[in-house]
């Protein structure tokens, strides 16, 4: 039956389905929409998805698991908004999220998305792991709980629970300690930042998470926040103000950039590696932060930085956005965006693929294994590379 109160009812028909959204800005490859790159059928292109949502809203097609899978395969990477030549392009991702919200309210969403959201409702993280284990990553690092220090170091779910993510969280903590930054963490009391919950369409759950987090931060007197993940950075910088949570939010690469340029962090130890940097969507296209991570890498002696064909606002998404690092509707093939991106990184001749997001880290590291490139290409977070340069093990 038709969807009655779809917010973008009078805009969505303006999509001409001309397909510019499939390309990066330099048109070098037709596969820059991650879902289209994976399935290469018109239904999975951004235009195809908008036409299907419109057809569903008008009652021309019925809901089906396949339709839900097509909508949820959008990783909210914003390549479409970057490339679409038409004036409504600023709302494309919102149109898809609004369709997801409609499905959420009807309870008809892919099973893995259902599990993701139920786990967050229950345990405050998509893995459903116990809240009592959220602080386990910091055991033995000497990192303190937050009691008014200058920065709240917000880690996020992937950094807290994913073994690979934990490693990065620890290294960044030690780097900040080395630079003498005054910071503390929330440990077991940290809750999901809600960024993925919102892009999965669970609007009310996102509002609750945002309200609770803002209240928690304010009760602790938090002024400045440094986040490990661009996803947390995005929610706290752009959405929390709407819940009167006006904090000074930085992604950690921005903080490291200033620490290095102010001389508070000595990276002269250097790292000998040819590195290519992957722009995470929530740092790049969503927040136009392209230079800080690159400046950090370039400030380390011995690092030779090579750009991939598709970089900055033309980067190919790792396929982990829109909750897909967990619900993973784009995995399972050599056409998966993560595997395409890993091949592209390898072609530059780099031996290190640098990332600045725990989701990208896990997606691209799995892809390196799947492509059997373990001995030719290593995925490292910028924090880990900086850690090496400061002699942190």
């Amino acid at each position, binding site marked *: 039956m038709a969807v009655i109160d779809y917010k973008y009812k009078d805009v969505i028909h*303006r999509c001409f389905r001309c397909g510019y959204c499939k390309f990066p800005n330099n048109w070098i490859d037709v596969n820059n929409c991650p879902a289209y790159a994976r399935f290469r059928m018109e239904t999975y292109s951004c235009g195809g998805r908008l036409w299907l949502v419109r057809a569903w809203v008008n009652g021309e097609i019925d809901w089906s698991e396949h339709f839900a899978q097509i909508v949820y395969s959008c990783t909210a990477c914003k390549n479409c908004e970057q490339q679409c030549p038409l004036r409504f392009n600023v709302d494309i991702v919102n149109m898809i999220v609004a369709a997801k919200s409609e499905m959420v309210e009807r309870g008809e969403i892919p099973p893995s998305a259902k599990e993701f959201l139920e786990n967050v409702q229950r345990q405050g993280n998509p893995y459903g792991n116990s809240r009592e284990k959220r602080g386990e990553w910091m055991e033995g690092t000497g990192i303190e709980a937050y009691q008014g220090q200058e920065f709240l170091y917000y880690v996020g779910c992937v950094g807290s629970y994913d073994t690979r993510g934990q490693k990065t969280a620890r290294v960044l903590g030690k780097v900040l300690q080395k630079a003498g930054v005054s910071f503390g963490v929330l440990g077991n009391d940290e809750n999901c930042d809600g960024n993925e919950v919102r892009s999965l369409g669970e609007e009310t759950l996102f509002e609750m998470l945002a309200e609770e987090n803002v209240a928690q931060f304010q009760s602790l007197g938090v002024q400045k926040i440094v986040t490990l993940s661009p996803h947390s950075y995005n929610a706290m910088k752009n959405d929390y103000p709407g819940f009167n949570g006006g904090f000074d939010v930085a992604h950690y690469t921005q903080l490291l950039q200033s620490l290095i340029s102010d001389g508070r962090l000595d990276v002269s130890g250097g790292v000998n590696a040819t590195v290519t940097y992957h722009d995470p969507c929530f740092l790049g296209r969503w927040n136009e932060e392209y230079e800080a991570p690159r400046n950090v890498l370039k400030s380390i002696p011995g690092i030779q930085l090579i750009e991939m064909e598709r970089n900055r606002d033309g980067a190919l998404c790792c396929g982990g956005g829109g909750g897909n690092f967990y619900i993973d509707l784009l995995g399972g093939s050599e056409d998966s965006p993560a595997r395409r991106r890993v091949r592209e990184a390898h072609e530059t001749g780099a031996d290190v693929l640098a990332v600045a997001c725990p989701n990208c880290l896990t997606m691209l590291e799995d892809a390196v294994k799947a492509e059997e490139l373990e001995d030719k290409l290593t995925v490292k977070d910028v924090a880990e590379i900086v850690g090496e340069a400061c002699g942190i093990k």
Partner: protein
Amino acid sequence: MDSVYQALVDIVGQEHVSNRQEELFIYSFDLGTTEPHRPDYAVAPRTTEEIQEIVRLANREKVPVVPLGGGLSLAGLAVPFKGGIALDLKRMDSIIEVNEKARYALVECGVSQAQMVSYLERYHPTLTHSEPGAPGPATIGGNVAIHGQGDLAQPYGFNSDMVNGLEIVLPTGEVCRFGSCSISSGWFTLHPLPDLGLFLGWSGTTGIITKVSLRLFPCKRIRGVGQFVVENEELVPEVIHKLTHTQMAEDIIAYSQAVPPFSSGLQHFLINLAADSEKELEFKQEIIWDDTLGEYIRRGDGGFLGFRQGLERPVVSKTSDWRKGGGFEYVGAIMPVDTYPECYRQGREISERHDIPYTVLGRCIGMAHAMMFSWTYAFNRADPESIKQAREALHETDDLALELGGTLWKPGLYGQKLVMERMDPHTLELMKKVKQLLDPNGIMNPGNWEVS
């Protein structure tokens, strides 16, 4: 279990074939005003061999096959009128070889125009191809299949004139090669073997183009666009005639449109120039702006609006948003250049009668040998009345183009009927024989170019 579906899964793999409502819905439309028709399957093959097996299956089961590249031909040429298999060729997107010396590119049919532009800019900066200005995903194969033209039409003709070789899967499943490639490994010329050009202009009704060797042309270091305008449309043919005489320009386009209002009624010229040095550029500018167009400027009949370096690709999709309706369709016709004034005047009259802001454009083909004249009608996809108005305007324009002595380019069903009615019966009979010879079971893109 649907045996055809299962057979398709065995050929291309489970992920590249679908009979689900979502794929059938999307592949039932093109972007224009043509009524949608649902296919029974959507299939995305990766190799010529897969296409052969699909076509053989289609013959056995009498299932229509409708090939499409970008699906952007905007005239219903990729709409599966009789259902069957919508064959999306965009996965066949490898650029196989670029031969710098003989200036040609051998590509799979699904290579997109955008990919070609960026690949040449990135790896072969001294070469360029005739880019049609369609949205990025439009494919090389699809474009030659409908006798498309691009921004080198004035010096070098139709894109289909630039074909050095073709690989075709016949409707009965065999693979044929036309041009030097059929006897040697080089794809450097289509001629002089007996001409079997039975696949260009047929819009995929006589076979499926799988590989194209396309001529490339020198790409000079400096490329720019000069803009010239005249008030009186009667002057346009002679201006084009004079410009083509100089043989200095690349693309020559004359257009007129109602939006923005201050330019309504004026005839604008876009004159592409290319040069390897400032000296060469100044020389060409002088010949064009002083020696050729100077008299118009001095008489006040025309105005020079400046020259801008850098070739900015036209973004034709913007037209679809003029009426905030996400849609437009245009009639393209190959017309004698001197019919420009009538094409403009009557075209404008049709637009105004259907309450659509007029947009007409003439692209010179060859040395003013002909021009591709397009009448564009935007519509609002959410407003059936505006679609109806656009569709009527399109049909009236089909009639107009033929009345003015032109011939329709990539016409939809309505235009095809008009063309075939006017065609001399023996040529029509020969077309029918060719179709029957190549496609005995009538599975290839049925409905289009069907000689009754």
